[in-house]
């Protein structure tokens, strides 16, 4: 019989181990006194936990917490990498608010996120749902649709993208052949972000896999019951699929929002922030300030503002999620 009370078992196991230890102690008194104390220490749950978690804990202090504190300190200084930082108080933050380049950068980043993330998630969900009907070939199809995610973040694909959407590329040629003369993506501040948004949405693979796993867990009973009641496919989607998937939508939404705010490689390689700063996303703006203009303090201040904005957006999403995220167990 399997007992389902872990505490009792653990207690039993503990007495069992102590008892065996006691036996050994009696046989071998002088050495074992020290040894058993050590063994009790090393097998203590707290010791075990901290030993196993040690890499993360050490790494957290060394590579996250200390750099964050440093970054905050630098954000309050004038720091040209060649000379020591000079205290400047809130100067960087005040300069930020008045910097039209920064405000533009925030604006285009928010535009990229607001258009790009929902597009990607809708696409991921649609494809995931579409593929559930493929029985034998599902694995193959999923692998094909995952390929863009596999390679999409690479410089190789960014260079292809640059060429595909360039004025000599096939997509612009196609649009021009449909009658829109002198059309261009990268020469036009209104359209330059489109190839980047499309490139990001194109890499919908991992969101798709996560949706697919969620769809698989929805019991077919719900759909059958709804069909007997005469609910249409659209109705079934909105009253069954979406509510049950809502925790997964929340997960995907938060992950994609954060990566959207940090988008870098595509803007760096494809548009270099142009034309006229139309794709000068915040990460690129931070990079340029830090490593091109050597304004480390200013760059740190921008990154803190970015952190606050992301934290605020995430917080709002989590707070409002009570209204739209539905947990089955609550029923």
């Amino acid at each position, binding site marked *: 019989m399997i007992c389902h009370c872990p505490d009792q078992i*653990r207690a039993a196991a503990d007495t069992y181990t102590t008892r065996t230890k006691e036996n050994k102690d009696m046989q071998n008194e002088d050495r074992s006194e020290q040894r058993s104390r050590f063994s009790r220490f090393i097998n203590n749950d*707290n010791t075990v936990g901290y030993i196993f978690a040690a890499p993360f804990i050490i790494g957290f202090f060394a590579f996250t917490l200390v750099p*964050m504190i440093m970054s905050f300190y630098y954000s309050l200084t004038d720091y040209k990498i060649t000379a020591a930082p000079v205290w400047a108080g809130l100067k960087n933050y005040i300069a930020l608010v008045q910097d039209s380049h920064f405000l533009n950068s925030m604006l285009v980043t928010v535009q990229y996120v607001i258009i790009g993330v929902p597009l990607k998630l809708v696409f991921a969900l649609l494809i995931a749902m579409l593929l559930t009907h493929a029985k034998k070939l599902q694995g193959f199809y999923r692998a094909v649709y995952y390929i863009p995610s*596999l390679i999409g*973040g690479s410089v190789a*694909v960014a260079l292809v993208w640059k060429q595909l959407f360039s004025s000599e590329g096939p997509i612009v040629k196609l649009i021009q052949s449909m009658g829109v003369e002198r059309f261009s993506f990268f020469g036009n501040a209104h359209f330059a972000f489109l190839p980047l948004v499309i490139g990001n949405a194109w890499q919908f693979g991992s969101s798709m896999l996560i949706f697919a796993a969620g769809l698989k867990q929805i019991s077919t009973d719900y759909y059958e019951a709804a069909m007997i009641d005469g609910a249409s496919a659209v109705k079934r989607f909105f009253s069954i699929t979406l509510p049950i998937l809502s925790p997964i939508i929340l997960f995907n939404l938060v992950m994609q929002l954060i990566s959207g705010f*940090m988008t870098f490689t595509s803007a760096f390689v494809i548009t270099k922030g142009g034309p006229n700063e139309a794709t000068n996303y915040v990460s690129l703006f931070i990079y340029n300030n830090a490593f091109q203009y050597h304004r480390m303090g200013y760059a740190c201040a921008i990154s803190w503002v970015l*952190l606050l904005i992301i934290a605020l957006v995430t917080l709002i999403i989590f707070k409002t999620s009570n209204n739209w995220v539905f947990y089955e167990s609550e029923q």
Partner: protein
Amino acid sequence: MKTKRLISDIIYHAFIIGLGFLMIYPVLWMVFGSFKNNVEILQHTERLLPTVWRWENFPKGWAGFGGTSFSVFFKNSIIISLIATAGTVVSGTLVAYALARVPFKGRQLWFNIMILTMLLPGQVIMIPQYLIFRKMGLVGTIVPLTLTKFFGVPFFIYMTMQFIKGLPRELDEAAMIDGCSRYSIFSRIILPLLGPSVITMIVIQFYWVWDDFMGPLLYLNRPKTYTVSYAIKLFADATSTTDYGPMFAMSTLSLVPVFTIFLIFNRYLMDGVTAGSVKG
């Protein structure tokens, strides 16, 4: 009825295949582009297949820049990716076991910190991290690109945790009654069962590191140390006109390792990713 079913099946599969073709069209365009010359790439973009297969683009691209060939770039990429991936797997499994199974004081706190770290935008710590490594004289070496991975990558810790939570606790308890310590439970029971999770980590982390651009951009400063992803960018930066054929040839080759690993482990990958992200 049966024919109607058949027709809808055909339409369905044709649609998926058509859409799938559209999805991988850019990849095919790149692969076939590696056999074209500039005239074909720029003047006849609508053509997918090359009229003449110009294999010479490959040796031409492989020659690299300023005497450093792609053999060096590939070697650098492979070394960095292997070390970083190994670090991720080792630290990921250890930390995930502690957070998923060991009831130590402060576990909830560290779990929360781990989640917050996962959500932390990398830009915030990028600059001070760079300054620290610079002060230590490690800029220009592979240390900044690999060392941090040995201290746990939160995304993978979280994923592995979810996987461990899915393993029956009775296994641990039975072993404990038999007098197993938590160390041997980890090494003899949990670790051998982590296969799908470890494979997922290997595949995803390998291609993340392989494709990484910002790391090499910040930390590598001599052509001898460049990775493939960084070296490819140099084709586009060339002062003379870009030679697209060799650039696409090297781009294509740069994706081969990632593709190979994906094809080998594809089946397990789907299980690993989904096990990690759905529950919880």
